[in-house]
């Protein structure tokens, strides 16, 4: 029984780290631009396909690292393109509903486009560790999973440093907290928007490579991560980065423990139950700002 508990917590932490990594870009974009982007998970899908192509001609570790770089770059650019062509024109004459509808449209377009271009056949990304596993008595897992956990944490660490230690990073946070005041500081908001989208989408692209290596790459792979990322974002507080990080881990562990000890059938609903509970007690999410500040 004890070993099952440890195993489930480990499973939850690992999957949670990926949830966090995807949610962090979503929440950043929401924080800065107030855009709920339902196509966010598709950035991961595109990142994973970028990796499929890089690994096709560059196998092994080089291919894998190259994939990460290529996915971040390609999806970052895709993020900027969608921001400029799809979301930017709506920002001034928008209602939130318009933006949500447009992002759902974008989600459908990207998913179907990728099926058209890449085909529906699921692909695998090569595991750089040759699918080696570790059995530690209390739990078993693959080296790849541990690596993904470490990699997500490091990526989030770098993002944290960037947002806290660089002038540009602080400007992104400032813009997300108070857009008008940011304008009065001489921050070029349009530049911040572009950068935020590039960064948020780029991270989702990297998460897509991890997700694709752990699972598989297929056109509809973005839907589930989008859903999870929204749960995480609402849980942690919309636009709150720390909330997204902790929210991801909380959701991951809650799902595995709830699935294991309460009901497997409701594993995917557990996130929503948690959201309802959290929102009853803290209407702005676990880490959300209180009204008025």
């Amino acid at each position, binding site marked *: 029984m004890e070993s099952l508990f440890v195993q489930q917590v480990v499973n939850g932490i690992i999957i949670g780290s990926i949830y966090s990594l995807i949610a962090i870009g979503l929440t950043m974009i929401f924080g800065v631009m107030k855009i709920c982007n339902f196509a966010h998970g598709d950035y991961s899908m595109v990142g994973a396909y970028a990796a499929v192509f890089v690994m096709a001609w560059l196998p092994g570790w080089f291919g894998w690292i190259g994939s990460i770089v290529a996915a971040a770059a390609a999806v970052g650019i895709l993020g900027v393109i969608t921001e400029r062509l799809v979301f930017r024109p709506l920002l001034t004459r928008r209602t939130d509903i318009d933006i949500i509808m447009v992002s759902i449209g974008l989600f459908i377009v990207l998913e179907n486009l990728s099926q058209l271009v890449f085909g529906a056949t699921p692909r695998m990304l090569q595991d750089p560790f040759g699918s080696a596993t570790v059995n530690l008595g209390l739990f078993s897992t693959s080296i790849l999973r541990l690596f993904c956990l470490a990699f997500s944490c490091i990526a989030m660490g770098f993002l944290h440093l960037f947002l806290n230690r660089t002038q540009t990073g*602080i400007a992104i946070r*400032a813009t997300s907290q*108070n857009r*008008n005041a940011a304008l*009065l*500081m*001489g*921050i*070029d908001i349009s530049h911040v928007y572009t950068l935020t989208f590039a960064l948020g989408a780029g991270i989702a692209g990297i998460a897509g490579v991890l997700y694709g290596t752990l699972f598989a790459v297929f056109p509809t792979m973005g839907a589930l991560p989008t859903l999870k990322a929204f749960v995480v974002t609402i849980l942690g507080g919309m636009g709150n980065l720390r909330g997204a990080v902790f929210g991801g881990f909380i959701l991951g562990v809650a799902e595995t423990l709830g699935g294991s000890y309460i009901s497997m059938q409701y594993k995917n609903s557990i996130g929503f139950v948690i959201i309802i509970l959290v929102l009853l007690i803290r209407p702005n999410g676990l880490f959300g700002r209180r009204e008025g500040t």
Partner: protein
Amino acid sequence: MLSIENIKVSYGKAMAIDGVSLKVEEGELVTLLGSNGAGKSTLLKTISGILKPHTGTIRFDDQDLHTMPPHQIVRLGIIQVPEGREVFPELSVLENLKMGAFTRKDSGVGKDLDFVFELFPRLKERRRQWAGTLSGGEAQMLAIARGILSAPKLFMLDEPSLGLAPVIRNDIFKVIRQIHQERGITILLVEQNAKLALGMSSRGYILENGKVGLEGKGADLINNEYVKKAYLGY
């Protein structure tokens, strides 16, 4: 220095500023008075470029402001401390100040930081704290300090004493006078507290329903019967 010619600004169909002309000369401290909804904040937002006038011109030295995006206007040295402080709640006090110096590349930032910490020792104590945890008075200090770090040539303050206790209000006014006199910064002050503001101003404007109702020297306005009745409460 700043000259506004007959601008009109509206929110949708509602006209907020209906033909205002106004001048601020270098080295002046000019007060803008007016009741709620008279268009004072709208005017400052328009100068900062957040709102755009549909007619009229705004010139600063020899630059047209009314076609410029806000971030470039800041780079000219036109700095606004907005109504309601508008500090970044989840940035530390120090990070807020750094954002004030966002456009600056000169070496004077460190010196200015020392200057504002001297001006507001409380901010120095709390420099690592989130700005959202500050009291109203401290947040106002931070907003002003953040503005000073932007190295203003024209410093616009929107109701800096709003909602503050009298003691703190006096401190704030002292600091405004100090930066005006010691640093020679030109100031455009929007205030409800007419007596304090006009008392230290070179000139004043009174906005009413989006138009300039009265203008004149500070001392003259204090003694104006209409001003006395409407704004000074005699």
